[in-house]
């Protein structure tokens, strides 16, 4: 097996989820690397969109901002934020990747605050940005994050961004678009999806070298287990070579 680090593993796993012909809304860092890797491997016709307005660029190197010039390098269109978000709301955005300080059993995310006083929070984070928008509009929302019980909490102390809300059909009942929602959670240890009825997080694959116990010990709530839990295939030599040589040669993301 090839030698690789955690970030490389998560990026390669995520890239495989992005099928050819799909449209993905990405931010900076690992999500952008996953989209670029997918485009350079199995999905040459993957449409990459950035929330600030970059539409279908041929990203030449890691962007620092979702609005910097790299996000419109050889793009098909330099558009606007409302246009990108409205494209998502119309139903043309297939995937997005998001993250947060907390994620709960229904895939809700917190990127706003820790502490109960909203006007004077203990710890303030950036807020929604485009996360609440993308998570509401994209058909399938994914998360790449380290497996950690402080991060995987039973209930987010503050829900910035909607997952399956309270499970079941609660998300659609709120008024959010029917059929869209959290899809896969990719960590250094495992891959999770959501059980179709309860919409609770469910473990479906383990990365090489990790057992169920490792994941359970690093998760703050009870995970549902799929009938068959497979071993997540490790990155191939080819994926790693493209990731290291073409996608992120300066190791901005994979060097973290």
């Amino acid at each position, binding site marked *: 097996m090839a030698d690789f680090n955690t970030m490389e593993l998560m990026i390669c796993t995520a890239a495989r989820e992005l099928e050819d012909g799909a449209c993905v809304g990405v931010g900076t860092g690992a999500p952008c690397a996953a989209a670029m890797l997918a485009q350079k491997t199995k999905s040459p016709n993957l449409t990459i969109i950035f929330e600030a307005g970059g539409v279908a660029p041929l990203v030449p190197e890691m962007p620092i901002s979702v609005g910097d010039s790299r996000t419109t390098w050889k793009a098909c269109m330099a558009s*606007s934020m409302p246009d990108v978000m409205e494209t998502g709301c119309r139903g043309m955005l297939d995937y997005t990747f998001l993250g947060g300080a907390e994620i709960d059993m229904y895939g809700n995310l917190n990127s706003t605050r820790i502490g109960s006083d909203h006007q004077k929070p203990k710890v303030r984070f950036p*807020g*929604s940005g485009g996360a609440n928008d993308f998570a509401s509009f994209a058909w399938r929302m994914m998360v790449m994050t380290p497996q950690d019980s402080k991060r995987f909490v039973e209930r987010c102390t503050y829900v910035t961004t909607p997952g399956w809300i309270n499970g079941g059909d609660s998300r659609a009942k709120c008024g959010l678009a029917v059929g869209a929602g959290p899809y896969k959670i990719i960590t250094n240890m495992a891959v999770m999806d959501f059980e179709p009825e309860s919409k609770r997080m469910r473990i479906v694959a383990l990365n090489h070298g990790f057992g169920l116990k490792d994941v359970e010990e690093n998760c703050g709530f009870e995970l549902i287990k799929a009938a068959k839990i497979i071993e997540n295939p490790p990155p191939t030599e080819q994926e790693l070579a493209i990731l290291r040589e073409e996608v992120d040669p300066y190791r901005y993301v994979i060097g973290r």
Partner: protein
Amino acid sequence: MDVIEKGVGRIFTDPDADKAREFFRHKSRALVSKLTTVKEAVKELIKDGDYISVGGFGANRVPISVLHEILRQKKKDLGLAGHTATHDFQILSAGKVFNRCDIAYIIGLEARGLSPNARAYMQSGEVEVTEWTNYTMSARYKAAAAGVSFHPIRNMMGTDTFKYSAAAVSECPFTGQKYTLVPALYSDVAVIHAHEADIYGNCRVRGILMSDWDIARSSKKVIITCERLIPNDEIRRDPTMTFIPYYCVDAVCEVPYGSYPGNMYQEYFSDEDHLREWLKVEKDPEAFKKFLDKNIYGVQDHFEYIERNGGIRKMQMLRQKEWLFRGARQ
């Protein structure tokens, strides 16, 4: 229209469309020169207590010269749209010039990390906040630009982002589907950096627009800084290029490299060394004070700021970096 649910946040600006119409009724449509200096524009057009919107995207096509001047003139009690705000927010937090903020994205500088000083300011309780998202803020500007008092959107429901917003949920009279309604945002002043403008305020930009189309139209007053002035004949030669018309604009200032240390599409890349230094120096209050004196309070204008940070040599390097002339890179 029945309101099913409402957020607890405060609306900092009046969404009333008739009041806005009354203001715009008296706004000049005259094709006259609005050419002025950044110093004069900030002095004349931004009053203490005003609500301001900043164009661009945090550290991309941002009107840095105006933001620095707001600090130098010690403006206070401003309201601020924290919409895609990154380095712009960092600057305004350094001067503590605002005391209320509509939040979509603040404190962070995206992949560069978080600003310790801006974070401390937002944790201090000195700033009243209402939560939104990037698109909902765009939709608030769209409503105002359209001259109506709200815009329906299909997100925020079911989250604490909604709970701490000033939005409302209601039902579509045609389909019965639930929508979040967000109030129109008419800013007192918008500040936008463009690639080119004429003396009347007709503006051109290249690259992404972010929300600037609607911000320019919905704000009561608009200050434009531009990389270069162009003749009105050039505007009239190709009017398809104009994205802000003259009658929206109150001041035009020519500020070459006006987005520095931010990125300007097809002009120059961001100065990542300088932005890194800024984030680092914020951790030490004494060093931060010296840094602000050197770069903002102790300088005359944007040219002097650039001269203190590498001058034309630095600008050339950033221009080469923007075009990915790899052999020429630092």
